[in-house]
C-alpha cells in the first residue's frame, strides 16, 4: 500500500460519513436487538411506529435528546460531561481504518490494528471517568468492575490478534484481508482457537451480556451510567453499539477473510464488485453481532470472580499456548 500525505478534506468528509453511518448503524442495531430479543422471547417487539416498528429507535433518539441532562450536585461536572463523549468518539475514529471493501476504507494505516486497539482501550477510561465523576456508589462499583474486567480481557484479546498478525506478517488491515484471500484464517486450527478467544474477549470488552458486569442492572441498578440521563446515556448507548460493530469488523477482517467469500477471492474491479464486497463484509459483521445479541438474551450473567478466573486461568493460558504453537509452526513449516 502506498503512503501519501493524508488528504484532510477526504478525511473530514469520511469522518462525517462515518458518524452518519454510526448513527444509522446504532439505530438499526437497536431495532434489530429489540426485534431479535422479542422473537427469542415470543413477543412481537416494536411494531407501532413505522413499518415493522422501524422508526421506533428514531423516536427513542428524539426522546433522549428532548430529555433534560441531569448532572448530580456532587458530581465532577467536567469529567461527567467528558465521559460519554470519550466513550463515543474513539470507536468512530477506529472505524476509519476498517476495510469495508477494497476501496471503501478511509485510511489504510500500516499500523491499523495497533491504532484500533489503542483507541479501543480508551473505552475503559471513559467508563472509569463516568463511574468516578458520578459520585454514586453503584457507578463506582461499575467503574471498578469495568477496569478489572477490561484490563484482564485485553491480554487474551491482544494475544489472539497477535496470532493473526504473526500468521500473516502484517499490521495493515488491508493487507491482512488480502493475505487471507479465500482461505480464511479461521480455517486453520490456530486461527480457529484465536477466533473463539477473540470473540469471547470481544464480548467482554464491549460489556455485553453475559459479561455485562459494569452495568449489571440486577446488582448495580445501571452500573457506571446510573446517573446519566438524556443524551449522556444516549452517547454511552451509541458507543456500545459502535463498539459492537468495531469488534465484529475486526473479527471479520482478521479471521473471517474480510470481504472475501470462503475459498473465493473477489478481485473484480468496478462499483458493482465493490458493492458486493462491502455487502459481504457487512453480512459477516452483522452475523457476528446477531450471535452477540442471541447470547445476550439467552444466558444469565457470570459472577465477577468467575469472569476473572475465566480470563486468567483459561483464556490467557490458551491464547499463549496458541500463539506459541502458531509461532513454532511458522518456524518449522513456514506458514
Amino acid at each position, binding site marked *: 500500500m502506498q503512503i501519501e500525505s493524508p488528504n484532510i478534506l477526504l478525511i473530514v468528509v469520511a469522518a462525517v460519513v462515518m458518524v452518519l453511518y454510526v448513527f444509522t448503524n446504532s439505530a438499526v442495531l437497536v431495532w434489530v436487538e429489540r426485534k431479535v*430479543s422479542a422473537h*427469542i*422471547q*415470543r*413477543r412481537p417487539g416494536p411494531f407501532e411506529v413505522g413499518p415493522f416498528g422501524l422508526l421506533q429507535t428514531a423516536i427513542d433518539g428524539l426522546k433522549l435528546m428532548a430529555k433534560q441532562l441531569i448532572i448530580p450536585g456532587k458530581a465532577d461536572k467536567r469529567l461527567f460531561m467528558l465521559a460519554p463523549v470519550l466513550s463515543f468518539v474513539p470507536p468512530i475514529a477506529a472505524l476509519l481504518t476498517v476495510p469495508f471493501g477494497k476501496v471503501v476504507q478511509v485510511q489504510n494505516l500500516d499500523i491499523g490494528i495497533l491504532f484500533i486497539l489503542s483507541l479501543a482501550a480508551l473505552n475503559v477510561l471513559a467508563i472509569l471517568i463516568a463511574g468516578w465523576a458520578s459520585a454514586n*456508589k*453503584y457507578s463506582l*462499583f461499575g467503574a*471498578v*468492575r469495568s477496569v478489572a474486567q477490561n484490563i484482564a480481557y485485553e491480554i487474551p484479546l491482544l494475544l489472539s490478534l497477535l496470532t493473526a498478525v504473526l500468521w500473516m506478517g502484517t499490521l495493515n488491515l488491508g493487507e491482512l484481508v488480502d493475505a487471507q484471500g479465500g482461505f480464511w484464517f479461521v480455517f486453520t486450527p490456530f486461527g480457529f482457537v484465536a477466533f473463539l478467544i477473540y470473540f469471547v474477549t470481544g464480548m467482554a470488552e464491549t460489556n455485553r*451480556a*453475559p459479561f*455485562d458486569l459494569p452495568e*449489571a*442492572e*440486577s*446488582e448495580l*441498578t445501571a452500573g457506571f451510567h446510573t446517573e446519566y440521563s438524556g443524551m449522556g446515556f444516549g452517547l454511552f448507548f451509541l458507543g456500545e453499539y459502535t463498539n459492537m460493530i468495531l469488534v465484529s469488523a475486526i473479527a471479520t477482517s482478521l479471521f473471517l477473510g474480510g470481504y472475501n467469500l470462503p475459498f473465493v477471492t473477489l478481485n473484480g474491479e468496478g462499483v458493482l464488485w465493490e458493492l458486493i464486497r462491502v455487502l459481504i463484509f457487512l453480512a459477516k459483521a452483522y452475523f457476528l453481532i446477531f450471535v452477540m445479541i442471541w447470547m445476550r*438474551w*439467552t*444466558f*444469565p*450473567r*457470570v*459472577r*465477577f*470472580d*468467575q469472569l476473572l478466573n475465566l480470563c486468567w486461568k483459561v483464556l490467557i493460558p490458551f491464547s499463549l499456548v496458541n500463539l506459541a504453537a502458531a509461532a513454532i509452526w511458522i518456524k518449522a513449516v513456514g506458514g
Partner: protein
Amino acid sequence: MIQKPDPTQETLVLNMGPQHPSTHGVLRVVLHCDGEYVLDAEPVIGYGHRMHELIGEVRDHRGFYANVGRMDYGGALSFGHGHILAVERMLPDLEVPERAEYLRVITTELNRVASHLLWFGAFLLDLGAFTPILYSFDDREAILDLLEHVTGARLTFSYMRVGGVCADVDKDWCDGVLAFVKRMRDRIPMYHKLVSGNIIFRKRVEDVGLITRDMALKYGCTGPVIRGSGIPYDVRRSEPYSIYPELDFDIPTSERCDCMGRYDVRWAEIEQSLRIIEQAIAKLPEGPVMAEKVPKVIKAKGEVYQAVEAARGSLGYYIACDGSTSPYRMKIRVPSYSNLSILKELTRGILLSDLVAVMGSFDLVIPEIDR
C-alpha cells in the same frame, strides 16, 4: 443493628434499595462492603407496612378477608385459604361442602404454580437472564386466565367465603385446567433445557447461600427454603388440612442446602402441584359450593391457630376472639419474614452478586413481610 461505619476500616456502606431492581419491592438492605465482598447485610423493612393486624381487629371476619390477598400478591389464594380455615375452625357447626374444599385446593394449587413461575422468572432476572421471565409469564398467563374465569380476579383473589366458595365451575373449566396441566408438563423439560443445565446458571447458584438444617430450624425458615435444606416440612403433609390427606403427592426435598437446592425443590413442587390438581379434578364431587347454614354474623370466642402451606412457606393465622364480631387480636405469621431474617447471617463475606442470588432464591414478596 445498623452499624456505624468504622473510619479505621476501609469499608463502603451501600444502601441497596428501597428502590432497587433486585429487592422485589420496597426492601432496603444496608450493606457494608469491602470491595465486592459483603461484610454485613442488614435488611431494613417496613416501607410497605399497612398494619393489617390492626385492621383485622377493627373489621369483622368477613370484612378482613379481602385484606389477606393484598399481603402476598404472588399467592393470594393460599393466604385466603388460611384465613377462611381459621374462621371456620371457630365455627364447629359449620359444614363446608366437599366440592367447595376441592375447588379451594384446585385454585390454590394453580395459584402456587403461578407463584413459583413468577419466582422462576424473577430469580433468573436477578441472575441477569432476561428471557426466562417472559416464558414463565406465558404459562402464568394461562393460569391467570383460568383463575380469572372462576374467581373474577387475576392477582388479589377473593374467591373463598366462610362456608364455601363464591362461584362454581363448569366442565369446560375443568377441561381447561386439565389442558393446562398437560401443557405445563410438556413445557417443564423446555425450562430445564433452557436454564437448569446452563453452566453459567449452575456456577452462579451451586454452593451459594448454604443454609444448614440447624440454621433453618433456629430461624424458623419454612417452605422451599427449609425443604431445600433437607427437612421435609410441608404443612400440607405435616399438619393436614382441607382435603390434602385424600390426595397423593410427594414432598420434594433437596440435600444441597444452597440456592440450587431451593431451585430444584420449587420445580419439583410445580410438578407435585400439577399432580394434586389432576387428582382433585378427577375426584371433584358434585354438589353445592356453599354451606346451607352460614351464620350471618360471626360471633366466636376463644383462640385458634391455623397453619397452611403458602407458596413461600408456612403461613399461620392466630386469631383470638372475645365474643364480639371482630377479633380481639389477629396475628399473621408470614413465611418470608422468617426466611428473610436469616439473610444477615447467611451473607456475611459473600460477593455482592451472590447476595442477589440468595435473595432471589428466597422468593421474597415484600408486602407480605411488611404486612
